[in-house]
Structures are given as structure tokens and as C-alpha cells.
């Protein structure tokens, strides 16, 4: 016979985000993702533009 107390989940004690906080966090995460993707794309394009001289950085 199963122990009925094992069915009960412990009450969550962590911070519970409100809907507004969840929305804001999601928007921030998307923005960070887009910014990182743009940065990667920028490095890719500059590498194509500069070609083998990409590491030449004149003072």
C-alpha cells in the first residue's frame, strides 16, 4: 500500500514571479539574444570584408 504522504509535494519556497515580472524577463532575454546574434553576425561580416587581414589592427 502506498504511503499517502509521499504524494504531497513540498510547498515551493522560492521567489514566484508575477506575470509582469515574467513578461519583462522574457522581453529582456529576447533582447539579449538578438544583441548577441547581431554581434556574431557583425564579426562574421567584418571577417568577410577584411579577409585575411582581419587580425591587422593599425594603431
Amino acid at each position, binding site marked *: 500500500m502506498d504511503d499517502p504522504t509521499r504524494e504531497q509535494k513540498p510547498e515551493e519556497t522560492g*521567489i514566484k*514571479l508575477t506575470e*509582469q*515580472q515574467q513578461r*519583462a*524577463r522574457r*522581453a*529582456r532575454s529576447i*533582447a539579449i539574444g538578438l544583441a548577441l546574434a547581431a*554581434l556574431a553576425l*557583425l*564579426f562574421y*561580416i*567584418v571577417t568577410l*570584408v*577584411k579577409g585575411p587581414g582581419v587580425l591587422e*589592427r*593599425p*594603431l
Partner: protein
Amino acid sequence: MSVTAARVEPSIAGVGDYIELMKPRVMSLVVFTALVGLLLAPGHVHPVIGFTALLCIAVGAGAAGALNMWYDADIDARMARTAGRPIPAGRLARGDALAFGLTLAVFSVVVLGLLVNVFAALLLAVTIAFYVCVYTMWLKRSTPQNIVIGGAAGALPPMIGWAAVTGDLALQPLVLFLIIFFWTPPHFWALSLYRTEDYVRAGIPMLPVVSGATETRRQILFYALILAPLGTAPWLLGYAGLLYGVVALVAGAAMLGLAFRVRTEQRGHIASKQMFGFSILYLFLLFAMLLVDRFSAGLFGPLIGGLAAGA
């Protein structure tokens, strides 16, 4: 003795709050003046590299704005003009603004150094450091000359744009630097004349707070007297053509006229508000005309040359 840990509420800051932290209006002027410096510089730069330079300068300016709002959150809360900013309005934590500003500052300088050139990156780093450490942390709260000396930070972007192309500096970008440098005091003091109460409340020693309105009006005129002839320097030194010279003379005369009106204004702040508004247009006109002059010479130069040869 009981120790209570401060509860950190999860952030409700949206993307718009972070954009506001970067002072987009200031950023747009920075990008425009840097673009002029970049396009006036001799030599050629690939459009992608030019775009990268402008992007880094824009992000660097945004970083400086964010760090300024992080440090000045206490005084921003006491001024009507700035009380709605993300930190004093309670939408964004100070620590988040600091982390955001530092991240952008490091990224903008490193990317500019890696993808464009190290000299331009060094200039950008100096600009951010000067604005945050010298102007924001030191001068702003300690001397009425805060915006005079601090104005150097706002005047550097054309030099960074120039350096992004050439890798060094010359007299021409220095003239652009000086124009913005001497433009800054009459621009901000005109604003501070009708925002004096705000600055008193925040305890910022702006010139009208420390020396009074009469002295401020006198100083505005003094700087306008330097600025108006200085604005014509690119034409007088042969860097720009007659079209620029005419616009600089007319706009400079208008600036001087407004400065005289501010000087003699007894009641109200109509002239001060006009001066503040027109000063933005003045700087935009001068830099826009430098571009027009440069590219109209490229477009119409051969045609004018051909007509002269045929005559």
C-alpha cells in the same frame, strides 16, 4: 542584534527602460557628429567598418549615459526633469544599471579596437571615462564650471569618427571638437536658467545657482561671442566652401542675437528657451552643412570644373 538581508525584488524593467538608460537623444547627436567626423576624414573606409565604428561610438555613448544615470540616481530623483528616469521611478535597480553600463562600455571599446583600430578605441575609452569619472563623479557636484570642462566628453565623437578612418588626428577634427566644446556652455546654461529650481533642489552647483542669473546671462553671451566666429573656422581655414561659410555666418549671427536677448531679458525665460532650442538647431546645421559641402563638391565639382573649362 538581528541581521536582516535586503530582499531583492525581481526586476520589472523592460527593454524600453534599458534603452532610456542609454539617453537615446544624446546618443543621436553623438552619432551624427561622429558620422560627420568619419565622412570628412581623408581616405577610404569600407562601409561595414564605418558602420561598425558608428555602432561602437553609439553604444559607448549609451554606456556613458547608463553609468551617469547609475551614479546620479539620487539627484535625478530630486529634479522634475529627471525624476521619471528608470532608476528614480523605481523600474530599474541601480546595480542593474551599473552592470549594463559597464558591459556596454567594455564591449564598445573592445569591438572598436578589434574591428576598426586601437587609436579610435582608446579615444572612445577616454571619452567614456571622462564623462563618467571626471564630469559625473567629480565636476558635476563640485563646480559651476562642470559643463564647461565636462563638455569635452561631448565634443570628442567627431574626433573618434575621424580616427576610425585615419588612425590619427589632425587640425580639422580639432576644430570640430572646439566648436562643440564652446557650444556646450551657452546650450546648457540657457536650460539651467529656466530649470534653476530643479538644480537648487538637487544641490547641483550650476552657474545660475552659484553666481546668479545675471552672471549666467553674461557668460552665455561671452561663449556665444567665441562660438559664432569659431563656427566659421572650417570655411576660413579652407576645410569647407562658401555655402558652409554663409550658413555658419547667418546661424552664428542668430546665436549672437539670441545671446544678446538672453543677456537683456529681465522677466520670464522666453529668450532662454529660444536659445536652448536654437542652439541644438545651430549645431545640427553646422555639421549638416559640412556634409552637404563635402558631398556637393564631389557631385557638382566636375560639372562646375567642366563648365569653367568650356567657358
